[in-house]
């Protein structure tokens, strides 16, 4: 990992409001020169072309921009790209492994866990974290701990069904 203290070096801030930022996304390292205002969400979408992460409200209210930072789910719209430096970032694109889609992705397809699909990457990132947190014990628990992800299409019953299927049906890699 990079040495965080060295990031204070003046030469990593070439002009007052720009900064060279190194991001570790889905196991790859990217070095970008960014306006300090750029959020992690905009860096992912506009600079790295990782457009799976969605911009819904851009204000912390909808959960469409959910990604994992060091394994924890956070909102990329309220995180500056510079704040994510030195952290392990996982986006929806990073969930798919060598053997195809993540079990949660497959469950969303099987259970029709979406209609328009706009909220879906955020829902799935949240759902994967929810299982790692051990909070998929009941429908009630799933609903409570998924409440930060809004679905305008109202696909909630199927989203809960998809998560429940992975949590109870298990499968070898359900807790990835």
């Amino acid at each position, binding site marked *: 990992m990079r040495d*965080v*203290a060295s*990031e*204070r070096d003046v030469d990593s*801030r070439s002009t*007052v*409001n720009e*900064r060279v930022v190194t991001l570790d996304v889905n196991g790859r390292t990217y070095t970008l020169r960014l*306006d*300090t*205002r750029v*959020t992690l969400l905009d860096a992912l979408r506009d600079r790295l072309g990782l457009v799976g992460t969605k911009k819904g409200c*851009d*204000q*912390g209210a909808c*959960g469409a921009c*959910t990604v994992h*930072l060091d394994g*924890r*789910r*956070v*909102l990329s719209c*309220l*995180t*500056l790209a*510079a*704040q994510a430096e030195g952290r392990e970032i996982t986006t929806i694109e990073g969930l798919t492994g060598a053997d195809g889609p993540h079990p949660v992705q497959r469950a969303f397809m099987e259970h029709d866990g979406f209609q328009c699909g706009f909220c879906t990457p955020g829902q799935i990132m*949240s759902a994967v*974290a*929810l299982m790692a*947190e051990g909070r998929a014990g009941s429908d009630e628990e799933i*609903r*409570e*701990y998924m*409440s*930060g*992800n809004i679905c305008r299409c109202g696909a909630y019953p199927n989203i809960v069904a998809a998560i429940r299927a992975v949590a109870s049906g298990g499968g070898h890699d359900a807790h990835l």
Partner: protein
Amino acid sequence: MRTFDYVRATDTQEAVRLLADDPAASCLAGGTTQLDLMKDGILEPPRLIDITRLPLHGIERRGESLHVGALATMEELAAEPIVAERLPVVRESLLLGASVQLRNMATIGGNLLQRTRCRYFRDPGVAECNKRSPGSGCAAVMGAARMHAVLGVSERCIALHASDLAVALVSLDALVHIQGPTQRRTVPLTEFYITAAESPEHENVLDHAELITEVEIPLPPPTARSGYLKVRDRVSYEFALTSAAVLLVIDGGTIRQARVGLGGVGSKPWRAYEAEHVLTGAPVTTATFLDAAEATMRDAWTVPGTEFKVPLARRTLVRELQTVAGVTS
């Protein structure tokens, strides 16, 4: 968003010095209030000092106190076994707030310092806001008030302090440890906040160049029972209309110790001393709880949109007293 210089501080003294050097700089913790308001154009600091790498993340029990680093997140504090065991009121106030994503970002220090959700305050198109521009008036008093306060308010400002955690912490007599450029100090959370009635623009006693380093929570007696009830417009992921933090020590049908905090009603997290006074030494009955609730909210100052909060806050308190005491009739 206005442009800003981003600086990442790596030690606490350095962060404090950076703040002292620049009267317009702001610090950035989880960013869930700070960046949100910058995006709205309400806050425009020319320099942001990222404090998230400061070594203030630890949560440690020392004797009968829990010392919580200012940068511990809401999820981290809620996950502590000692919190589940001895501080259910804190755990519930945390887990009933925001969403998991936000709680993974939001820090304990930032939570105490979150800004009001008053929509006029958050709308730069609204000129009348004494909190933003002292002397300009208050759009909420004349406008659509609902998520606003009724205690510690005046016609100059009815902004609510929306933290759930802070309501639990004022009821527990938590202490705020502060570091400034030349000194450290400790302020009881009950004396940390300034009401909107006293001053709409100053919300607490923290100076510009001071950081919260730690929040200290005295552990209640092991026999205490506690809990937090939050009443809101939707079941989850919503701010409180009203809430109640309750802690009781009960001995043989009598209340030996009572702590009460009320949320959703105050321009600061509200400690309901009058209710505690009624409860202490009284029998554990619903009649006692009704008396305690009646004693609260007497100084409420309402506008048409907030009148409902007076009876709702009282009922919220009665319900939570019943739940914590295990009494239904």
